[in-house]
């Protein structure tokens, strides 16, 4: 399943703030998002900012058990986990992802800390009928990005800032343009600290195909109406 371009994705941590609220949230978000990114709750959400970290710590269930409470696939769904937690359990993650109807598993620490497992990851994804996807930072080596393109991933995710939800004074448009140049025709998803239709527009205009919102959604997840209104407002930033 490909990701709509231009697209808006929503990030939620599985079973945060509770199992039932999470189930309501993904149902609602599936109606107003082009894709979902579902975090596998971890004890070490190292690249996340304080808000998303809190969702990992307070999720009702932990690990893959939290993922298993729902069926996904109304819109393309990508699981997001830290490779560190699944170094020896890659097949299990792929199996679960496949069972629940996800399209890919994104490991933000794969390239930064486990690059020797890159090939292994790609093969495992494919063996379970999933597509690989990759997380890069703005200063990720150009040659590595060129290599990632050859794996024909579902998308390449550009983290716009150092951690989720923490905005820094960076020229993100320039960084998106640089990475766009390198990823060629592969779907480029951008995220971190996106919270307004203006920012959605800016990121898409700079060359991203889709954006993900996470931190800004967290406090709205309990209120279906507010959540829906917020996402619809962000959609206003997508070019028609």
């Amino acid at each position, binding site marked *: 399943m490909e990701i709509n371009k231009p697209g808006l994705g929503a990030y939620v941590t599985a079973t945060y703030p509770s199992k039932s609220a999470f189930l309501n949230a993904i149902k609602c978000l599936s109606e107003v998002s082009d894709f979902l990114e579902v975090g596998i709750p971890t004890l070490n959400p190292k*690249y996340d900012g*304080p808000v998303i970290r809190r969702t990992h710590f307070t999720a009702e269930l932990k690990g893959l058990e939290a993922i298993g409470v729902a069926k996904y696939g109304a819109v393309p769904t990508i699981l997001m986990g830290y490779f560190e937690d699944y170094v020896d359990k890659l097949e299990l993650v792929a199996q679960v992802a496949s069972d629940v109807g996800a399209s890919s598993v994104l490991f933000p620490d794969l390239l930064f800390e486990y690059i020797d497992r890159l090939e292994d990851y790609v093969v495992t994804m494919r063996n379970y009928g999933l597509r690989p996807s990759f997380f890069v930072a703005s*200063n990720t*080596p150009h040659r590595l990005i060129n290599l990632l393109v050859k794996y024909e991933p579902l998308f390449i995710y550009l983290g716009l800032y*150092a951690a989720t939800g923490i905005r*820094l004074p*960076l020229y993100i448009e*320039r*960084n998106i343009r640089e*990475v766009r140049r390198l990823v060629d025709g592969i779907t480029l998803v951008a995220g971190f600290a996106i919270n307004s239709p203006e920012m959605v527009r800016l990121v898409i205009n700079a060359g991203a195909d889709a954006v993900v919102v996470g931190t800004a959604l967290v406090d709205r997840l309990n209120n279906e109406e507010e959540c829906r209104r917020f996402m619809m407002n962000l959609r206003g930033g997508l070019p028609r």
Partner: protein
Amino acid sequence: MIPHYWYNINVDLPKPLPPPIDPYDGDSRIALLTRILPSELLDQEFTALRYVPIPDEVRELYARVGRPTPLLRAVGLERALGTGVRIYYKFEGALPAGSHKLNTALAQVYYAIKDGAREVVTETGAGQWGLAVSLASSLLGVKATIFMTRSSYLSKRQRVLFMRVYGAEVHPSPSELTRHGREALRARPDHPGSLGLAITEAIEYTLMGEGRKYIPGSVLGFVILHQTVIGMEAIKQLPEEPDLVVGCVGGGSNFSGFSFPMIGAKLRGEGFERTRFLAVESEAAPKLTKGRYAYDFPDSGGLLPMVKMLTLGHDFVPPPTHAAGLRYHGAAPALSLLVKEGIVETRTYGQEEVMEAARLFARTEGIIPAPESSHAIKAVIDEAKRLPRGSVIVFNLSGHGLLDQDFYEKVVG
């Protein structure tokens, strides 16, 4: 000719640089950066550009202070060694504050002023960085406040004096100005200070007042980026491609600034294919050879985000050495990664052997080298004896040692 660009090696590294992370206790250090650092510096830390334009104003300042610095042939040293190896060195001590530190001080103060800062705040150990910031602030017309470790404040009186000549306010750290300083003094009235505590005080002081920006002297990516002006110039100046490139490492900014443009060319397959790169550290802080490659704080106080680097631990207290600029627990993340990947070789020297090298260099080349840079000289001498005739070595002479009386009294004593 002054380069138009600084070089960002991150985008050419053989593996990606792991991102900085926050620890789980306390407030976000990453978020804190936006309150204390000039914004352009944060952008440069994460830029996707390979070549970052040097603002015209900074290029003009580089010209005013004497850039490009000379690349000299060490004819006297070559003769004394008699090994038939040709030796060149880039002399950063030719800059008015006496070391390479001015390359980033000028850029950082420039960017701080662009953000509306009326005062820049920093820490210094031996005083090379403090002196460079004082000079840069004086040239650019902004106030500099320097927290200097108390032991150095008392022993390096000339550097304190010259910082004041440039108009800086210099405080021994721990000081009465900050909460952290007062607490340290209460616990121990004769506290000698530490670089970590001085950083903590500088950051606290920055947050206490309006119009202040904090600027750091090493380790961070943008510091190294600015220092690549050394290597960008050297590539143009070198009459022949070296077999060996050498520099000393405290936090890594002079070695990296000098070598990264050449290492980058090698990684991209655009030259320097047969060149080796050698980073030299002090026995007092052997992070390159004995450090762990792990996430750690760049400052002892743990106020900055954690970065993945070769480190002896942020609470490691190096024993005293006259090369105070090498007394640092970690090495810059990109340099650490290159060491890890075997692209940069490492070596460790003790103080005694380095003194002999400093003496020989002074007597054959006429320049009194900084104790820190003398570590590089020692490695050059050893390598010149090993390499085949006709080999070429180039090293970075990161500073002069004219203010290092304590070191030279031992050298002649």
